[in-house]
């Protein structure tokens, strides 16, 4: 019996000795005092291949490894400012005449030639794919190589359509390679493309020839699809580039552990980029110019922790082990006070709140080809206008986005050229009375179809399968049914729904669009007739007046003339009412007190090179916030020990009990 007691005692002692070794710090000792950013990812990126990756989460990694000709100014907004990144000078745009065959006749057409020159002395990161493992110098050929790679049919590049129909000879090149891949030959990157030219005299200069003026090309030269890529790396790693990287940016990929973490480290070959010295009014006061002029990047490493569960990520943030966290429905109560300010708990911790405005639009689309809600007659217009007037954006923002977001009046989001803060869409001011009147004029007084005597029915196709989705649908139904109309909700699985939308088998759907680049063309093209389904024009809206103006404005530079055309397009589309504009998203983001230079950018995702961290402060506060509490463990151990003493007594008693005395332990 003494053995049992001493065993228990030993166990107790072991627990007590092990306790001081316990800590909830998930990082190696001392690491958090270093200049390293800790970010969270909800899941592994699908790919970090710069020619394939397309999501914002991926871009936050990819854009730090693969820089482009241009970048967005980190601090300036409204309008967004492009700066030279790899580029040595602003590209030269010149008219360019080319011959094309139209209806069997050869015609001269006016296109555009862009001449780009990149900086000298930029080097790829060191990697075994290069001779001696030393990164070689980046030349213009490496950028054109990326263009050619986009059209490799084995590389599913999501933005190929931006280039395919505009670069001279590019369609030929893609067709040639499609044919080759069909015959199981690899893509041929040497096949000549008239529109992609190197300068025979200068290895840093390249030209892009377009079949039409296309000012948006400068924005495309900020997207990682146009980063210089080393053919050595592509040839050696191929599809592995989805989880491996060879770039020339401020960071290099140093560790990729699936479902666990991704670590970027400072690229020793990178130099010559500095923190901006000027910003917007208020930036200096907000401390955003403290590091002005310092060489980038400001941290040595960025660790992306893959945290699938929001609860886990949020608790790690509260403990100080994550530098930032989003605000969602789950933690909103804890983060915000009733007055819409940061809560007392957060303020005590020194947590900072950032408002992130997205360049996007959320909307409902009518199917313009539908015999009931589509069409361009005055009655059909009035029907759509009536429904538009019955829908109030504010409840959607309040109930489903915690009051964050801006009601949309038209398609262009704030911050982009053409956005007019004073504009009020006449059919987006909630007015049930006017809506009912328009509905009557459309031929459905009180929502009744006089021909049949039945209630008019609107079919709403959606993907609401969860509780929040059904609540959303409930609100839509309630708002529209106030008109006397009946709304029939049809919920589908995501891909079935997408299929129906692409095939035009719907009446009314909800949709959204995020900017690829901050040019109004990237929004107004959503209503351009020739872009109709399965293109991005989901409603199939096709008004020649609108189309004509779109073709004019898309190749114009920003200015009063372009603005006038955009306004005209607005008036045309608002009157036709193919969409009901709901809102432009906003989201809240929290950062720890030790994280500096945080200013969310709606489009650029390269903030990792500008942000800096006070490691000493982080380590101090982490230690302060996470002092282990030992007494419950000691108390539990003591309780178990004390509790076992009477048990030991029972055992002893039973062992030494005389057989005659009781009925025995057999029951």
């Amino acid at each position, binding site marked *: 019996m003494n053995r049992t007691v001493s065993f228990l005692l030993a166990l107790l002692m072991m627990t007590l000795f092990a306790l001081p070794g316990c800590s909830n710090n998930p990082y190696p000792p001392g690491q958090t005092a270093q200049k390293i950013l800790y970010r969270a990812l909800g899941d592994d990126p699908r790919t970090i291949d710069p020619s394939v990756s397309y999501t914002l989460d991926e871009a936050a990694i990819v854009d730090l490894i693969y820089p482009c000709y241009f970048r967005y100014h980190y601090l300036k907004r409204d309008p967004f400012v492009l700066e030279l990144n790899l580029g040595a000078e602003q590209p030269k745009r010149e008219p360019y005449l080319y011959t094309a065959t139209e209806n069997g006749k050869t015609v001269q057409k006016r296109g555009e030639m862009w001449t780009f020159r990149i900086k000298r002395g930029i080097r790829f990161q060191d990697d075994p794919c290069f001779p001696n493992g030393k990164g070689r110098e980046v030349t213009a050929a490496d950028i054109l190589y990326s263009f050619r790679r986009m059209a490799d049919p084995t590389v599913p590049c999501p933005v190929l359509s931006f280039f395919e129909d505009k670069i001279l000879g590019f369609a030929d090149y893609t067709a040639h390679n499609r044919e080759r891949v069909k015959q199981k030959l690899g893509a041929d990157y040497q096949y000549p493309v008239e529109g992609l030219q190197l300068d025979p005299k200068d290895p840093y200069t390249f030209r892009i020839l377009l079949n039409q003026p296309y000012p948006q090309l400068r924005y495309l030269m900020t997207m990682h699809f146009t980063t210089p890529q080393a053919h050595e790396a592509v040839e050696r790693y191929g599809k592995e580039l*989805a989880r491996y990287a060879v770039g020339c940016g401020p960071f290099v990929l140093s560790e990729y552990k699936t*479902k666990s973490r991704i670590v970027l480290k400072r690229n020793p070959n990178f130099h010559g980029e500095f923190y901006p010295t000027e910003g917007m009014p208020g930036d200096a006061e907000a401390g955003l110019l403290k590091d002005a002029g310092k060489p980038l990047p400001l941290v040595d490493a960025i660790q992306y922790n893959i945290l*699938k569960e929001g609860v886990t990520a949020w*608790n790690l943030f509260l403990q100080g082990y994550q530098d930032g966290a989003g605000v969602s429905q789950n933690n909103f109560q804890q983060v915000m006070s009733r007055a819409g300010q940061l809560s007392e708990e957060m303020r005590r911790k020194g947590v900072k709140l950032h408002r992130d405005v997205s360049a996007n639009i959320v909307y409902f689309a009518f199917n313009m080809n539908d015999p009931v809600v589509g069409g361009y007659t005055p009655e059909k217009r009035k029907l759509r206008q009536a429904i538009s007037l019955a829908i109030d954006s504010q409840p959607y923002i309040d109930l489903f986005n915690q009051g964050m977001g801006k009601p949309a009046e038209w398609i262009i989001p704030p911050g982009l050229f053409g956005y007019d803060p004073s504009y009020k869409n006449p059919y987006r001011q909630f007015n049930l009375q006017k809506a009912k009147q328009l509905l009557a004029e459309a031929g459905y007084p009180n929502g009744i179809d006089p021909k049949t005597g039945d209630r008019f029915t609107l079919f709403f196709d959606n993907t609401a399968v969860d509780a929040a989705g059904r609540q959303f649908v409930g609100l839509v139904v309630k708002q529209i049914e106030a008109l006397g109309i009946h709304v029939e909700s049809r919920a589908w699985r995501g*891909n079935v729904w997408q299929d129906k939308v692409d095939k035009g088998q719907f009446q009314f759907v909800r949709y959204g669009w995020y900017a690829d680049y901050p040019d109004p063309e990237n929004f107004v093209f959503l209503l351009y007739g020739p872009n109709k389904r*399965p293109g991005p024009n989901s409603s199939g809206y096709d008004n020649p007046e609108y189309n004509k103006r779109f073709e004019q404005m898309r190749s114009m530079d920003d200015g009063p003339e372009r603005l006038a055309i955009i306004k005209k397009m607005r008036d045309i589309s608002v009157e036709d009412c193919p969409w009901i504009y709901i809102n432009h998203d906003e989201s809240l983001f929290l950062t720890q007190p030790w994280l500096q230079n945080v200013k969310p950018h709606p489009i650029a995702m390269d903030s990792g090179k500008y942000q800096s961290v006070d490691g000493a402060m982080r380590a101090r506060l982490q230690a302060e916030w996470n002092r282990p*509490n030992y007494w419950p*463990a000691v108390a539990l151990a003591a309780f178990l020990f004390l509790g076992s003493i009477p048990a030991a007594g029972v055992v002893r008693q039973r062992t030494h009990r005389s057989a005659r005395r009781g009925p025995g*332990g057999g029951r």
Partner: protein
Amino acid sequence: MLRYIVRRLLYAIPILIGVSLLTFFLFYMSASPEQIARRNLSAKNPTPKQIHEWLAQHGYDKPLSEQFRKHITELFQLKFGNSDATNQPIWERIRTGAGPSFMIASLIFVAGQITYICVALGVAYFRGTYVDYWGTFLCVLLMSIVYIVYIIGGQYLLGKVLKYFPLAGFRGGAEAWKFVMLPMVIGVISGLGGAVRLYRTFILDEINQDYVRTARAKGVSEQAVLFRHVLKNASIPILTSTVQAIPGLFLGSLLLESFFGIPGLGSLLVDAINSQDFAVVRAMVFLGTLVTILGYILTDISYALVDPRVRLE
């Protein structure tokens, strides 16, 4: 015995074919290849050309019969190919994920079995006393709590309030213990209620047997009766209820791994279903079937090994 095992393995073949056939048709019934392609292409609006290319590259443009033939032959050669969604070789993913999954699951398994048997023996020893009553009450209480509550509660108590262990994360080597402790404790406690109730019944079944009374009559001490005689015989049903879980230890636990950020295989199948990654789904379903069949064979073998009354013919 060997003949028996071979026969059981041969029985497995039609089962595997059947399961693969079912997976194949269920998947095609739920999603068309075009939908799979769209889901796995990253563009906002993939063009029909891009979708067609994707289908051709992944072999989804071939006739169904040919696809199925390829599907079955590849699976039986254990050639799983690449994931449709990420293009990562599936074996590579399984290889990197099986380690952490096995580490956590096997620790929970071993620590759990030891704890459950000890506690069950203790409860059985004190049967009919306040220890037994309270034990029963606690076990039923533990059984009534949903698994996810253990996880969130454990994270909250041990990670957030007491601050003994990291909430999430994983590192190999010497630092692994730090990340393994919390999921292990939670894994063991969450299974405690059910297992102790079950094992207690197994033990009590034995304790009333004639040989126990004989042993006591001969003056064998209560501990010796319990550990030497009762435990040995009670271990037969315990074994059968646990051995079949062993092969499954490699496949990981969905909830535990996603909450603790453990890079295992637990979420692989669910993620693949959500992203319509048929290549991974068919591989994981096949492996899962294989592992389950192996589990049953192992159970039979262990039964024959520990119980001399059982012969495998």
